[in-house]
């Protein structure tokens, strides 16, 4: 690490208020040349606001920004981009049907004298950028054919092509696999050596050790402290983030395991998954591990009636059940929490209360009429029980933070009193404090005798929460790990598909 590297970007006493909230309160930190500076903090700590100030979307009420020692006086995204500050957002928005080259040069394609696009020149330049980056894609491929992690790499290439000095990455690894994370980190290290600096936001705290050089912790809009990575432990970081000692990241396990409540036999969907069989017992938290694309989500969706399957049987408490659609699954007591919170979990433009009630309308109606008093009562009780932070249940779901949105979706399902609760990546993009609460909910459900299945790509949480885990690879169950065998190495050996034992 370059100890004496000069400061590229400095923030001094940045404050920003919105009506009713002080989002940032005298935040200061500095980014050295050629380093990765991690911003850690819970949702709501002010990271997003801070990023928007750095990339020019917001103007700070107070405080100054310096780039290479020069005070920045113009505040707009275009200007910040032109002086070398690039942002790669958490949710990428490439134009999927355009080529890689067109995406890299979007809005700034090389033009001829009469204003037409010089396609040849553009493709040649794009190909050179890609090749120089050590990446092997044809610039003429469409974005759609790439994986999410490849799209991220293209975003980085795009940033480099405009001579970015500081690249802000907001949760770049939230939806990519472990091996892809490795590739991304390698590229970041390569760029560091070229003197490019990164501001890196991640909820995966192990990443701080893997890629970070320095870390600044934010809480409630204030800088708590900045540290060199290596001089602070993950536990200390967590404690500073949440403002209290987190004795445990996971709730204690003491399962009271009962009889089999769900049995899946030879579930098959041509080309997606094949001969998937497993049992889930009452009081058990069963993990489903595997690489992204192993077919875990697809199996869960089939059990829940969202997707069809060709053959196989599902037994609930020994009784065979036919699940053709979601209402069938709900009737049987099977619940599936989608991995796509915004896409399939919530109706963002409707209120918290309506979202919670959505799966339970029959319960709230007498004949054709809704009993809105009962609805309000039960939904607000459930929201309170899960500590959804919002002014009221009339607040629109779209205005909540990720963790609170997830709690709303979970609240909707808990009202059903599920027998089997399948949770697909329930903690993705959620901060540490809220993660713990979600694990707690799973444990409570199990304790009450329900069976819980957690699909997760995060091995630590599988190991920390689950009693047993299935491992899938290429549409098949390749292994089952339990007890002392529950280790990252063991799970990965099955997940890569080799461990057919």
């Amino acid at each position, binding site marked *: 690490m370059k100890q004496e590297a000069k400061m590229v970007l400095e923030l001094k006493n940045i404050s920003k208020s*919105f*009506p*009713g*909230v002080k*989002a940032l309160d005298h935040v200061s930190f500095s980014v050295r040349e050629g380093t990765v500076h991690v911003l850690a903090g819970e*949702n*709501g700590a*002010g990271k*997003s*606001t801070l990023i*928007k100030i750095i990339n020019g979307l*917001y103007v700070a009420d107070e405080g100054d920004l310096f780039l290479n020692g020069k005070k920045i006086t113009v505040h707009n995204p275009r200007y910040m981009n032109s002086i070398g500050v690039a942002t790669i957002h958490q949710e990428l928005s490439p134009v999927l049907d355009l080529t890689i080259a067109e995406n890299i040069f979007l809005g700034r394609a090389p033009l001829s004298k009469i204003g037409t696009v010089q396609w040849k020149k553009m493709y040649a330049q794009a190909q050179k950028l890609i090749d120089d980056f050590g990446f092997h894609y044809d610039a003429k491929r469409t974005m759609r054919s790439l994986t999410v992690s490849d799209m991220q790499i293209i975003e980085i290439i795009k940033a480099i092509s405009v001579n970015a000095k500081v690249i802000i990455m907001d949760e770049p690894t939230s939806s990519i696999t472990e091996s892809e994370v490795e590739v991304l980190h390698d590229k970041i290290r390569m760029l560091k050596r070229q003197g490019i600096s990164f501001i890196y936001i991640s909820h995966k705290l192990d990443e701080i050790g893997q890629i970070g050089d320095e870390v600044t912790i934010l809480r409630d809009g204030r800088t708590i402290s900045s540290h060199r990575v290596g001089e602070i432990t993950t536990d200390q970081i967590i404690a500073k983030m949440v403002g209290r000692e987190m004795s445990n990241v996971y709730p204690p396990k003491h399962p009271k395991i009962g009889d089999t409540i769900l049995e899946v036999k030879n579930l098959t969907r041509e080309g997606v998954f094949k001969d998937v069989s497993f049992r889930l017992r009452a009081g058990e938290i069963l993990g489903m591990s595997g690489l992204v694309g192993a077919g875990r989500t697809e199996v869960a969706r089939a059990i*829940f009636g*969202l997707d069809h399957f060709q053959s196989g049987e599902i037994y609930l408490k020994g009784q065979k059940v036919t699940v053709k659609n*979601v*209402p069938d*699954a*709900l009737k049987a007591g099977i619940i*599936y929490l*989608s991995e*796509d919170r915004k*896409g*399939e*979990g*919530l*109706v*963002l*433009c*409707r209120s918290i209360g*309506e979202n919670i*009630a*959505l*799966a339970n*309308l*029959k319960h*709230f*109606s007498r004949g*054709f*009429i*809704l009993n*809105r008093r009962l609805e309000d009562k039960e939904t607000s009780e459930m929201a309170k029980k899960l500590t959804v932070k919002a002014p009221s249940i009339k607040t*629109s779901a*779209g*205005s*909540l*933070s990720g963790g609170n949105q997830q709690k709303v979706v979970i609240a*909707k399902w808990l009202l059903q009193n599920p027998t089997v609760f399948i949770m697909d990546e329930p903690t993705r993009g959620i901060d540490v404090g809220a993660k713990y609460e979600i694990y707690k909910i799973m444990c409570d459900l199990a304790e009450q005798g329900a069976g819980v299945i957690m699909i997760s790509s995060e091995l630590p949480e599988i190991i920390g929460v689950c009693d047993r885990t299935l491992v899938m690879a290429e549409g098949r169950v390749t292994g089952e790990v339990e007890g002392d065998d529950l280790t990252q190495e063991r799970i990965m050996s099955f997940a890569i598909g080799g461990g057919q034992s």
Partner: protein
Amino acid sequence: MGNGKKGNISIAEFYSKFGIVLIFVILFVVMSIINHNFISGVNLRNVVRQVVVITILACGEQLMLISGMVDLSPGRVLAFAGTLSAYCMLKTGNLFLALIVGLACGLLFGVINGALITAFDIPPFIATLASMQMADGAIMAFTGGQNYSNLPASFNFLGQGYIGFIPFPVIIMIIVLIITYIILAWTPIGRALYAIGGNQAAALASGIRVKKAKFFACAFGGVCTGLAGILLMARMSSGQPAAGEGMEMDAITAVIVGGTSMSGGVGNILNTIVGSLIIGIIKNFMNLQNINSSFQDIVLGILICVAVIIDVQVRKANTK
């Protein structure tokens, strides 16, 4: 985190709650000052009578738009249903039968729309465009373009009668409004329609029977159209195949001006009433000022643009 939008959201929320009422009040006051005839009791009663047909159609469109659909067929289906009802009245002299035939005809087209949209996954725009063509063809084939006049007083009462000082069609309109309000605010199917319009995938994943709810919206729209057709013909004392053309646009305008989102999920019937009244007073005022109808269309066109621009801004402010 949403901190940044707090200011915007309150403006957006303010508009979606009260903005439309405010606009109505301002228009009303300005019009009263400019033209004193506008505020007379007789004129205002005329305004309300004139918005009856549009408002009833708007009730149907409201369900369609909230669930992310749209119905382009009412303008022609209304003429078919109304004319058929008038024809039946002339032939049989049975008012009850005439009503049933008119409503059934509207329902039939609603069912056709619903089937095309839910069973065959045809986009609502295309499905209802097709059924509009079918209705247009059917009415010409049936009547040959001929009007049916000399309707009995009992039929005309539906469109022209009074109960006390309240026009009979206004009473019908109020009943339809109340039913629509109850469906949207107080029934599971109303909730389902909002959820489908807001995020169909989430509704499906929550166990909502999406197709059933959409089919219901289409069928309800069809019945509203049939009823509107009967009232329109009764007001004109004759079954006129050419009547009502383009009225679906006025109805859609009323719904959108009332703040219902074109993309679905947001909107309520109370604002739609105000939207409908705004269109009503603008048209009425322009008539009083002797502004010709071509200019009226231009003004209504501008009104749609303004309403949609506001809708887009509101949604921008509401989503991250």
